[in-house]
């Protein structure tokens, strides 16, 4: 077991909250800046809901903020978000251009410079039964993005075939919020940059980042450090994206997040056949559970994935619980 202590190695958040505050309205900026530093340094999200109190998510708890910047567990007396506050924030995050965010509004979120994510709710406008856009935006959730560099070192060592210098086909799986994407991002960075420590020269990595979570792209430019040899296809459906990267960018490793659909697996098969290495993440708490899903069962039966990394929270977010190899699967009876 390799312990990953994400919380301890996290980059200080001073820069992060200041970046976010620059998108707030002048009034909100003043209030948040007055919040005690110990809350801001662990700030995870700022929630703005029209006509309701200003709320901060800090660690795993949430707090309501008063006009003077003091925080409290009780909503009474907290600063209430007005329409004009929301309007100004929306102006700032959209660069005065709601029309330029059609795709983002359809998906319900957008990425800010710095990789921070903003979720939006309001009234959905439908077109042929599909969400066309969101109007009358009334709720924003600004999520602070923190890069945790260096956490993948221990894992990466076990994901490299030291004889040939190539990366094993790897699946990272865990329940939600266990640090899959954070680990994946750091793996991408280290595989791309190379690790002199164990004589790994660095490989060309292609990332299909459908939900902009791995590289946190803002207008196509990665806001996180994803390494020097990394190409990111932002906002692209995974199956299509893998094919595009395979054909156009000649990657050594293709990386994508949260696969699960049959079309994703079919695309992965193409990638395997092209001799390109694959690292993907999957939601799931055990190998048995993965094997119970038809699409993933098919993937397991292909007998190609060489490493399964299971993450959990037993020693904090991002703990590597176990790394399985292909032969472990046979012993566990997961594979027929």
């Amino acid at each position, binding site marked *: 077991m390799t312990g990953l202590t994400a919380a301890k190695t996290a980059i200080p958040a001073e820069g992060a909250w200041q970046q976010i505050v*620059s998108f707030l*309205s*002048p009034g909100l900026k003043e209030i948040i800046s007055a919040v005690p530093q110990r809350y801001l340094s662990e700030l995870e999200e700022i929630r703005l809901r029209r006509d309701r109190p200003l709320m901060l998510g800090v660690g795993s708890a949430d707090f309501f903020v008063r006009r003077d910047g003091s925080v409290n567990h009780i909503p009474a007396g907290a600063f209430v978000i007005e329409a004009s506050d929301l*309007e*100004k924030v929306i*102006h*700032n995050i*959209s*660069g*005065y*251009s*709601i*029309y*330029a965010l*059609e795709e983002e509004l359809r998906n319900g979120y957008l990425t800010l410079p710095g990789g921070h994510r903003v979720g939006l709710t309001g009234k959905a406008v439908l077109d042929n039964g599909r969400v*066309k*856009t969101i*109007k009358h935006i009334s709720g924003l959730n600004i999520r602070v993005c923190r890069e945790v560099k260096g956490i993948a070192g221990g894992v990466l060592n076990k994901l490299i075939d030291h004889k040939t210098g190539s990366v094993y086909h790897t699946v990272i799986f865990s329940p939600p919020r266990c640090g899959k994407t954070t680990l994946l991002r750091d793996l991408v960075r280290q595989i791309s940059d190379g690790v002199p420590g164990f004589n790994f020269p660095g490989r060309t990595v292609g990332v299909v980042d459908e939900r902009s979570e791995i590289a946190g792209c803002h207008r196509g430019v990665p806001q996180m450090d994803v390494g020097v040899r990394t190409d990111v296809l932002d906002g692209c459906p995974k199956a299509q994206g893998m094919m595009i990267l395979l054909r156009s960018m000649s990657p050594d490793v293709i990386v994508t997040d949260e696969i699960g659909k049959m079309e994703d697996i079919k695309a992965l098969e193409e990638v395997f056949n092209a001799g390109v290495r694959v690292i993907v993440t999957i939601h799931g708490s055990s190998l048995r559970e993965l094997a119970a899903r038809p699409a993933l069962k098919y993937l397991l039966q292909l007998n190609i994935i060489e490493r399964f990394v299971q993450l959990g929270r037993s020693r904090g977010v991002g703990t590597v619980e176990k790394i399985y190899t292909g032969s472990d699967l046979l012993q566990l009876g997961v594979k027929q």
Partner: protein
Amino acid sequence: MIKLIGGLLIVTASGLAGWKKAGLYSRRPRELRQLITALQMLETEITYVATPLPEALARTAEQMGSPAAALFGRIAAELRSGSGKPARDTWSESLQWYYPRSSLGESDLSIVRGLGNSIGISDRDDQGKHIRLAAEQLKAALAAAEESAQKNVKMWNYVGLLGGLVIVLALY
């Protein structure tokens, strides 16, 4: 001799005044045409390319001549300054600033000001509609402006010159 010089001065001054007034009438259609072109560019930037507003305005300014370039350039710069002001306030303040520098009438500017209420805050189709509506209204204003230019430019040129002569003759 002094009388002659005085007379000449009066005629020149009055002629210049008439010429200036006529210039106002002939510049207005030109500026309206310029605004219409600018709005068409803005529409293309927004509806086809979805360029963010400050950038779309700056690009429009780059391609425009004076004085419309100054207007769009100013709005773009104000929006980029990160004041947190809503776009419609910036828009309308910039028009206020532009008014004394242009030959446009209050009614022309109010058309553009109206556009400021909706610029940037809706989807592309909707933005296109608002911009086209403003451009159509400006075209109507242009037709009226051209007609009044035709009537007034010549008249004010003559009125200036002849008025000066009349004054000189009366004083003689």
